[in-house]
């Protein structure tokens, strides 16, 4: 399952934009821009969602000093109907496009595909990432925005953010992708759409464990193992699974979760942040910046995704989940 990249493709640049509530995020100073209008001055949430994707890509291209014609592939996805916001953004970006859906794990699955294309020599520069817009996602997966239902403590808040990274050939001064693990679709029988962390934790556990095993590594080889959007409870469960598998809890120090930390301790967001944009925004801003600053040398990014739809939930199905991981190093 593990892919080792001989050419070590690099993350050349990245762009992250986020919505108004994300100003409160503890990561907000790392984002390229936050906007006051959750619809980006467009008429509908979905149009705003599309605009957000375009702007994140533009930030990434501007930082690398390239134009859309310099980019070989555009890879990404979101959570709204057939990923239309990303599809429509691809139309405007005018770059060969592969849409990917791994729910909230799309941020990493797209980077894996981009890295493979780079490794194969098919791509010099690829844009890869993911996004989510709170209003558009909530209305599809749960209730209308203004519906007054009581969210339990286990619920998570879908973030409004887009994160896209430019993947290119190996450069020493940029963080480079050494290896990747594509996760299985794991189902431990969880069926509560307001408790996604619990559904996703086993998928994250399996992916991390198999990555470490096949790479002959231990947790302490990493400065940081960052999962995408397990939330506070999901992270607790993930740690619990490692403890049960015989790892001491002190050794779990590098294990963190972007969703759990995203909004700080603000209780209005319950168990933390979620959504494809959550992992994309944190991975492609905070993590990359910290690596370039030299804080982290070896990082495992594990994006987690719950592969449910409102239909499967209503038909009484459980929630299968996946997790994809990439190992990034900085010389």
């Amino acid at each position, binding site marked *: 399952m593990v892919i080792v990249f001989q050419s070590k493709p690099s993350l050349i640049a990245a762009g992250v934009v986020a919505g108004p509530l994300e100003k409160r995020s503890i990561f907000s100073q790392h984002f390229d821009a936050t906007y006051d209008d959750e619809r980006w001055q467009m008429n*509908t949430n979905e149009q705003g969602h599309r605009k957000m994707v375009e702007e994140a890509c533009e930030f990434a291209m501007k930082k690398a000093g390239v134009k859309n014609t310099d980019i070989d592939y555009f890879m990404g996805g979101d959570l709204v109907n057939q990923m239309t916001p990303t599809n429509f953004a691809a139309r405007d970006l005018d770059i060969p496009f592969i849409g990917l859906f791994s729910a909230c794990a799309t941020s990493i699955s797209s980077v894996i595909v981009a890295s493979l294309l780079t490794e194969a020599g098919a791509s010099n520069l690829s844009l890869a990432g993911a996004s989510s817009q709170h209003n558009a996602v909530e209305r599809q997966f749960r209730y*209308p925005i*203004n*519906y*007054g239902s009581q969210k339990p403590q286990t619920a998570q808040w879908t973030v409004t953010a887009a994160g896209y990274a430019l993947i290119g050939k190996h450069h020493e001064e940029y963080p480079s992708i050494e290896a990747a693990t594509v996760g299985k679709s794991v189902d*431990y029988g969880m069926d509560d759409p307001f408790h996604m962390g619990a559904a996703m934790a086993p998928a994250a556990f399996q992916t991390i464990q198999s990555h470490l095993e096949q790479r002959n590594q231990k947790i302490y080889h990493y400065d940081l193992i960052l999962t995408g959007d397990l939330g506070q*409870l999901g992270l607790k469960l993930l740690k619990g699974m490692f403890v*049960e598998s015989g790892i001491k809890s002190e050794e779990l120090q590098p294990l963190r979760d972007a969703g759990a930390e995203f909004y700080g301790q603000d209780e209005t967001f319950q168990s933390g942040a979620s959504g494809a944009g959550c992992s994309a925004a944190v991975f492609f801003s905070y993590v990359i910046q910290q690596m370039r600053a030299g804080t982290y040398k070896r990082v495992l990014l594990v994006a987690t995704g719950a592969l449910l739809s409102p239909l499967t939930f209503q038909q009484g199905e459980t929630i299968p989940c996946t997790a994809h991981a990439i190992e990034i190093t900085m010389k």
Partner: protein
Amino acid sequence: MEKEQYQQLEQNVTPKPPYFKNVAKAFLVGGLICTIGQAVSLFYIIFFDFTEATAGNPTVSTMIFFAMILTGFGLYKKIGQIAGAGSAVPVTGFGNAVISAAIEHRSEGLVLGVGGNLFKLAGSVVLFGVVSAFFIALIKFILVSIGVVSW
């Protein structure tokens, strides 16, 4: 780790909903909404030609009007987060379900969006209300016919 083992772990880690606190909040907010309803009802009795028996209809409509205002300004969902069933069970909650769906689907137009999705959430309440009314009236009719009960 086995599924059963994980489910055990999940049970241990997941906090139980604060039952007592939730019920108390639902009771207080629900009670308050009904008290406001009673005030509206008294208003209609005193200033309009409604009796205690007929004031229910205008009261319910007025409460749903309040729900529209609160829903439109995004306040009802905040009340809902605190009160739970306290704001969902009164008719204002039914109004909130209809109105929030209507506002949400405005972007798809008045016919396909608002018209098609108005009862997306509240439809089940209308369905079960009407169907149960039909069967109960039917049962009562049969019981009266065979002389078990009277009207």
